[in-house]
């Protein structure tokens, strides 16, 4: 088993329960992708901005590739600078096209392994973008890119805070796809506006791609109609706030979450780090804590800090306080790999 762990201070690789020497030690790594024999890493250097690296030899050496860039900003009242702040999502479709989601809300694609990137103008120029806003960051951002395994022209995005957006034609046209979500923090008349929702993370079931799960700022939501409509899953426990979600690739009814107290108190409930699992489409949840710290745990798990492998058996969990755990039995029990890594942004299983 091999796992990539992107952290505030480097990219770590876990191989057979051993943490190897880190790549980019000291540098924030915000996203990592393995595709077609290459590794991609998005760095966010404090002084010199975002940098992209690619390795064709499993990380033995890295080369610098192009960084997605915004076009010249026209003069307007817009408050969002057209400047790349962070790569927040990195995915590849079966045709080999790379997709990058960014803060401040631009989606980019590359058909040449990152040598060049193109901003998806059709989304960036949507007038609705003016209503998006940052959630936790200064500007809105695309953190989830779900590419439909049946048809890679169908792509669903999760945006904090800009709801869910979907294309069915490879990015030519876009539709809002977050009807049914609600935002408690908004003025009442805007509560159900799909364009200002804050889905913290959206995932799509590989074997039943019409099923999506979302951990939203205000709770857990599920869609069974390809993101046309969303229904709240109220049985989640011990709390409904959180960032991460993972769905079983072969069983759309099985999903995992990492609840925290609430938005004003982003720590595990009662100091116990737990994973909530449903096996019945959200009707009921098991609270799993075996092997996870059950007292004085203040770990938060970010959007990409929970991952499931292609088999649906192995899970990985990485926290902001540097805890890393894996489970080989769908979360029934967990093994601790470290409690002292740098803050973890993203865990991702290798192919």
């Amino acid at each position: 088993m091999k796992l990539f762990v992107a952290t505030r201070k480097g990219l770590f690789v876990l191989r057979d329960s051993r943490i190897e020497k880190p790549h980019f030690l000291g540098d924030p790594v915000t996203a990592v992708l393995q595709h077609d024999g290459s590794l991609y890493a998005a760095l966010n250097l404090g002084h010199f901005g975002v940098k992209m690296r690619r390795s064709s030899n499993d990380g033995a050496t890295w080369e610098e590739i192009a960084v997605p860039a915004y076009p010249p900003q026209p003069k307007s009242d817009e408050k969002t600078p057209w400047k790349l702040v962070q790569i927040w999502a990195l995915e590849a479709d079966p045709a080999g096209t790379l997709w990058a989601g960014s803060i401040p809300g631009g989606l980019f694609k590359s058909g040449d392994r990152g040598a060049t990137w193109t901003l998806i103008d059709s989304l960036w120029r949507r007038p609705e973008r003016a209503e998006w806003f940052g959630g936790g960051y200064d500007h809105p951002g695309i953190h989830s890119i779900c590419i439909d395994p049946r048809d890679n022209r169908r792509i669903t995005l999760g945006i904090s805070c800009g709801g869910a957006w979907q294309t069915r034609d490879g990015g030519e046209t876009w539709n809002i796809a977050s009807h049914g979500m609600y935002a408690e923090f908004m003025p009442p008349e805007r509560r159900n506006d799909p364009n200002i929702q804050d889905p913290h993370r959206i995932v799509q079931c590989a074997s039943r791609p019409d099923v999506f799960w979302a951990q939203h700022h205000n709770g857990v939501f599920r869609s069974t109609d390809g993101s046309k409509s969303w229904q709240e899953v109220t049985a989640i426990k011990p709390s409904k706030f959180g960032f991460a979600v993972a769905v079983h690739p072969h069983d759309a009814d099985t999903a995992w979450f990492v609840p925290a107290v609430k938005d004003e108190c982003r720590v595990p409930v009662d100091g116990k780090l737990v994973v909530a699992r449903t096996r019945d489409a959200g009707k009921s949840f098991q609270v799993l804590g075996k092997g996870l710290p059950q007292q004085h745990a203040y770990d938060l798990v970010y959007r990409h800090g929970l991952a499931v492998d292609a088999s649906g058996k192995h899970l990985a969990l990485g926290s902001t306080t540097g805890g890393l755990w894996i489970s080989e039995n769908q979360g029934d029990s967990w093994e601790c790999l470290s409690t002292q890594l740098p803050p973890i942004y993203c865990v991702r299983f290798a192919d």
Partner: protein
Amino acid sequence: MLDEQGELRKHVFVFVDGQRARLSNPVDEKSEIYVLQALTGG
């Protein structure tokens, strides 16, 4: 040091002859340009 809009990045400061400068500040052959990366954090 510059972003895609041609502006100095957020955490980069430039001094010309010891004075905090903007990109529009004139320099001559003898000017000393000092670039400081100003960022803190754990």
